[in-house]
């Protein structure tokens, strides 16, 4: 009797708790719905509209609906910049992976918890410090009168400065630098969970170092690798600060194109929205690949 009462009491309590769980989520759902989802829908709609002058009563976009903005976005002027940005984002991701995996592996294999925490702290700290300032430091290093060129000329290796700042190279270095921690953290998380007895098992079964890594360690830590690649690739496609500070007129990326359409005078809002739409297409492809890979594994 008493037990029955207890059970019914606890189950109605649980049901109430579940409803309460939803109420707690409500502010976030409303906030993100209004200030995140709806604005994205606005971008989508405006990318199909006609450019307006933005002067007087006329808005920055008007009827009728058209595909004109998308034609321009993938056309001869803007198309190459978009492809270039995707390529730069890809190269950045590859280099972040090559640098980030050994780093994450190193952190996760420290002997004591304290050492592991400290090794991790050394990666997280630059990650959270001011992005503008960290990017700016590369101007000191790569500039024509910068550290590397002074060093090369001081040693007599070159007579004239090598142009590094305001090129794709500088942008690439800045991006790898800025986004490396995004690669390290998820890989660290998966290496840390990895059971190293599996490597011993692989050795016992006759695998060498390379084989043990390729056939055991890498597949088991792949979710972290994929997550890291997503976290680097997606933000880098839309990077604005790094190409603006290090790329000059040579290293233009999608971010600057979009910014110009919205924040400079004479901007074309539907074109900006369409360029952003094309970029979001690449973002969606990356996210769907990620979702597909993680679902298959789980």
């Amino acid at each position: 009797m008493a037990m029955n009462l207890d059970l019914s009491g606890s189950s109605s309590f649980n049901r109430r708790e579940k409803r309460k769980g939803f109420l707690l989520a409500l502010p976030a759902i409303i906030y993100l719905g209004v200030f995140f989802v709806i604005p994205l829908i606005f971008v989508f709609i405006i990318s199909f509209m006609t450019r307006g002058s933005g002067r007087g009563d006329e808005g920055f976009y008007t009827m009728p609906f058209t595909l004109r903005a998308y034609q321009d976005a993938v056309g001869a002027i803007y198309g190459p910049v978009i492809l270039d940005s995707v390529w730069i984002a890809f190269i950045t991701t590859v280099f972040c992976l090559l640098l980030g995996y050994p780093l994450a592996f190193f952190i996760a294999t420290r002997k004591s918890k304290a050492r592991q925490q400290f090794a991790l702290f050394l990666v997280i700290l630059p990650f959270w410090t001011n992005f503008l300032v960290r990017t700016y430091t590369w101007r000191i290093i790569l500039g024509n009168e910068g550290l590397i060129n002074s060093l090369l000329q001081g040693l007599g290796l070159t007579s004239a400065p090598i142009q590094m700042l305001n090129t794709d190279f500088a942008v690439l270095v800045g991006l790898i630098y800025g986004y490396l921690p995004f690669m390290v953290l998820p890989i660290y998380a998966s290496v840390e969970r990895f059971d190293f007895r599996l490597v011993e098992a692989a050795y016992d079964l006759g695998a060498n170092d390379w084989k043990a890594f390729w056939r055991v360690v890498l597949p088991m830590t792949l979710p972290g690798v994929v997550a890291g690649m997503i976290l680097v690739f997606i933000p880098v496609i839309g990077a604005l600060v790094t190409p603006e500070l290090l790329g000059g007129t040579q290293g233009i990326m999608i971010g600057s194109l979009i910014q110009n359409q919205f924040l400079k005078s004479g901007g074309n809002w539907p074109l900006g929205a369409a360029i952003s739409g094309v970029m979001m297409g690449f973002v969606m492809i990356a996210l769907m690949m990620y979702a597909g890979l993680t679902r298959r594994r789980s």
Partner: protein
Amino acid sequence: MASTTTHLPPRPELQIDQGQIRRDMAARRVGKLFTLTLAPMAGYFFLWAPIALLVIFSFNDSKSLARWEGFTLQWYANIFNNVVGGDATFSTSKMLEALETSFIVGISATLISTVIGTMVALSLVRGNFPGKRFLDGLLFLPVVIPEITQGLSLLIFFNAIFSFVNGTTGLSIQRGLATIVIGHVVFSISFVAIVVRARLADMNPRFEEAAQDLGANAWRTFWRITFPLILPGIIAGALLAFTLSLDDYVVTIFMKGVGGDTLPVFVFGLLKLTVTPEINAISALILVMSTALVSISLFFQGRGSGRVGA
């Protein structure tokens, strides 16, 4: 006999070449040294050398940014004497104004996003309602979607809302600090939720059950049990939200009105338009400030983790 003869032929191949083995082992050791030690060290060097250089060169007694000419505190002194960028566009008072704006925006965005983010973290860990997985995905998106897309989408959104309000009521609303705060809260909610959620997941739910068995209602249970236990997580999340807001440039330039520059907007203009040694000093000061904030946040994230409800 037969067996020995069949074993004889391969014998010469079995002869051990000590030199070869030593070379193989050396190659293996070099390989291990490279992948397990040198590569990570190169990674750390890559992450920290530019920061160290910046701080060192902020004390450089030269107009040149890259040749070391001796130690000076001149550039730091200049900042406090109202010279930042060589002309009136970039005075110290303008910079302090921008810093003040950043703090007003940062504190407002932090308060709002910490409350909303903590609530949604609680609902995701303790609640169980339809659409929970969907909400999980929704919270993940502002972290990964390029900031520039968030900035321009909010610009389009507010432009449409404001012109609608103007058309119907005649009121003229402009973008300003409020719109910057709204933009910063969008991405901060996700980060607060991630940090608080990790803390909640570490916490033993039996403490809450015990409080309720002892007759406390949900409200009282939260404030007397849950809140004190997850407080370090909430503080860490709030400090991260504040750091993100203080750091943000991209969403801010889309959301700011005329004037009303935040510190990153001011610094970006400075970095882009002038080359003066004071920039290194300002940058070093900003680095120290954000390093302090992050260290405190990480301290709170690490504090007692693993001990809660163990």
